């Protein structure tokens, strides 16, 4: 297994609508990553594109349409897609491109243009259901997150005030992120008084749909020297999928995230995640999900994530800074392109390039994505 290091990252702003087409967004993110790594496209030998449902961009086999913007023209190019889990699974695919010895320098590029789906991406979400069992009920996607949040709150007796703290923290952190779409100074009361969508989920509990793209460059250990003296090594990868039938699991604990985390921790030699991890970027499309995924990532015992949040442990200057980037809640949620605020953020943090968001002396970081019908977990551990 060859050593693999991340040597560059780039991303566009996240916005409800961008003027750029999907390809143009990819170009902007890839160009930024190349500039940061001091490389040109000829130095890249394979390209991995990660992009979630075609139904957002409105282009069938969207990976083919994006390829020239990703730098894939006349190159070894492939798209991987595991729903919302693509944000961290795509860099993992980039990792095995290099660790296998097939590629020396691999460009991983994730994109999503949800604004093409008119008037709201919600109508594309209408087709993620089983056509026989669920579409006839005409569900709204928020329903199942509300059911999961409800179950999580019920089993651990967690109050909404504590969950709202996550939204306050992340939207505040996002004030320091150049790509932020919904950065804001808000209070717990703002969250609790926001419009109820599907109880217990309210307006300020959710991340917004966005357009955006993000890129990461991975290089083999023996190729890193001339590129950078500040590489961030990929030391653990893990991914796991649960059954299609989301009604067949007790939603209070994401077992598929725990299995992916154990896989990554075993590879990275991590035995006590809370102690050994300096910065974490769990997937936070909803505020309760950050807590749900902190527990899935075994960063704390089941039901205790809310206490850590209340005690400020997850603040940037806390013992376990969580979502210092501002996450999906603050920066935006372009599904696959959230790689920029998950894997990309961990790279920038461990390389000491996170600017105002920098967590002091962070050496080991974990990022995680989650997707499909509450069924997919992808986890990556990096160290500088």
């Amino acid at each position, binding site marked *: 297994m060859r050593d693999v290091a991340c040597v560059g990252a780039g991303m566009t702003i996240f916005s409800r609508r961008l003027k750029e087409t999907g390809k143009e967004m990819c170009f902007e993110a890839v160009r930024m990553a190349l500039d940061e790594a001091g490389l040109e496209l000829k130095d890249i030998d394979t390209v991995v594109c990660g992009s979630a449902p075609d139904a957002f961009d409105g282009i069938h086999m969207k990976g083919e349409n994006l390829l020239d913007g990703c730098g894939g023209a006349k190159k070894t190019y492939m798209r991987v897609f595991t729903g919302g889990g693509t944000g961290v699974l795509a860099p993992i695919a980039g990792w095995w491109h290099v660790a296998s010895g097939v590629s020396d320098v691999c460009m991983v590029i994730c994109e999503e243009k949800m604004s093409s789906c008119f008037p709201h991406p919600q109508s594309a979400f209408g087709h993620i259901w089983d056509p026989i069992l669920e579409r006839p009920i005409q569900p709204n996607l928020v329903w199942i997150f509300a059911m999961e949040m409800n179950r999580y709150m019920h089993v651990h007796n967690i109050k909404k005030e504590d969950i709202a703290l996550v939204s306050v923290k992340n939207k505040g952190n996002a004030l320091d992120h150049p790509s932020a779409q919904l950065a804001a100074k808000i209070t717990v009361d703002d969250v609790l008084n926001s419009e109820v969508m599907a109880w217990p989920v309210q307006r300020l509990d959710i991340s917004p749909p966005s357009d955006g793209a993000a890129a990461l460059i991975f290089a083999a250990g023996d190729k890193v020297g001339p590129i950078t003296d500040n590489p961030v090594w990929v030391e653990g990868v893990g*991914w796991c999928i649960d059954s299609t039938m989301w009604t067949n699991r007790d939603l209070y604990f994401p077992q598929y995230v725990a299995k992916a985390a154990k896989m990554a921790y075993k590879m990275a030699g991590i035995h006590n995640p809370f102690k050994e991890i300096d910065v974490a970027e769990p997937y936070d499309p909803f505020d309760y999900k950050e807590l749900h995924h902190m527990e899935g990532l075994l960063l704390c015992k089941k039901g205790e994530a809310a206490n850590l949040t209340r005690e400020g442990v997850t603040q940037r200057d806390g013992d376990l800074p969580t979502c210092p980037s501002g996450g999906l809640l603050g920066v935006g949620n372009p599904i696959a392109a959230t790689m920029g605020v998950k894997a990309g953020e961990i790279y920038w943090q461990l390389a000491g390039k996170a600017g105002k968001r920098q967590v002091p002396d962070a050496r080991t970081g974990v990022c995680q994505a989650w997707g499909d019908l509450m069924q997919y977990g992808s986890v990556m551990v990096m160290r500088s």
Partner: protein
Amino acid sequence: MTRVGIVGVGYTDFRSVTPEVSWKEIMYKAASRAYHDAGIDPRRDVDSFITCAEDYWEGFSIFDEFTPDQMGAVLRPMITTCGDGIYGLANAFMQIKTGLMDIVAVEAHSKISDLITYKDVVLFAFDPVYNRPLGGHPYYVAGLEMRKYLGESGTTEEGCAHVVVKNKKNAMRNPLAGHEGDLTVDQVMQSQPMFEPLKKLDIAPLSDGAVVLILASEEKVKELTDTPVWIKGIGWASDTCWLEQREWSRAVYAELASQNAYKMAKIAYPKKEIDFAEVDDKFSYKELQHVEAARLCPPQSAGRLVSEGYFDQNGAFPVNVSGGSLGCGNLIEASGLQRTLEVALQLRGEAGTRQLDCETGLALSWRGVPTASGACIVLGV
């Protein structure tokens, strides 16, 4: 680093309609046969699972959600590759080469008979601003490409008709095939012109079917089978996606993909070091374009050679003895695994009346209109 081999194959036959099974059930059918063939239990022995699929072929916004149960992948590592079956094999190959995984199951299927508006979905892959607004039947792009290829290479329409006749005849000896037949060149030449010079019989008919291949590390291959098939080389590549920028007369993606595969397999003289090939033939002229691109015959000579029987089962270099897509049916994203399956069966000596005397075979796939992307795999014993 460990070698990678195929230890199990599982497949359904290829038929135009399969009303008696849902997409889950056709996947389960192929997967359970593959695990049986490899002699393994997916719930214990398989480390990783890979599915090759595109959302709009299946009818789900995130098809990745609907794949684990029928593969035995519940609470296991699994991904969906948006590509042809050989792209899935490439991911499995790389996962094993890292040493993280020992046994990986790769699946691809077609339930295209469930899709009522196939041509609208193909058109939905066109660039939405420059190409799609002109509408029409999306296969006109193949007509443009065939015209350019015939013009540049001097190949005749009869040469393409010979491909159809050869493949449908080969399919007579393939029990899995769904579109076999004894046709004459004239029959093909007189079939309804659709996108001149492309005629109705030049186009491979759509088909349902599922194929699952089990890949394993060298150590596991030796443990599990005494007829191993090794992956000697694998490559995948794309020309630009712009219709207005790409090379119309040559399959550049096939040139790049086969080049990468040959480099890995240390093959310098493909024509001599490879015994037979299964290349994509979703349109008749594509087979000729692809054998030339993979340097399995001199450039611009494929049209003449196919008329002389050079690529027949008993010819100098057999191509598509399985019947190809023209004979078996176009399995969309599973076409690559269909090609690789035939190469694996041949190398295992399990090809029945199609059996060739061979030690090294090549499979090459193309992702269809309007893409310029393809993958190539070289297998050997």
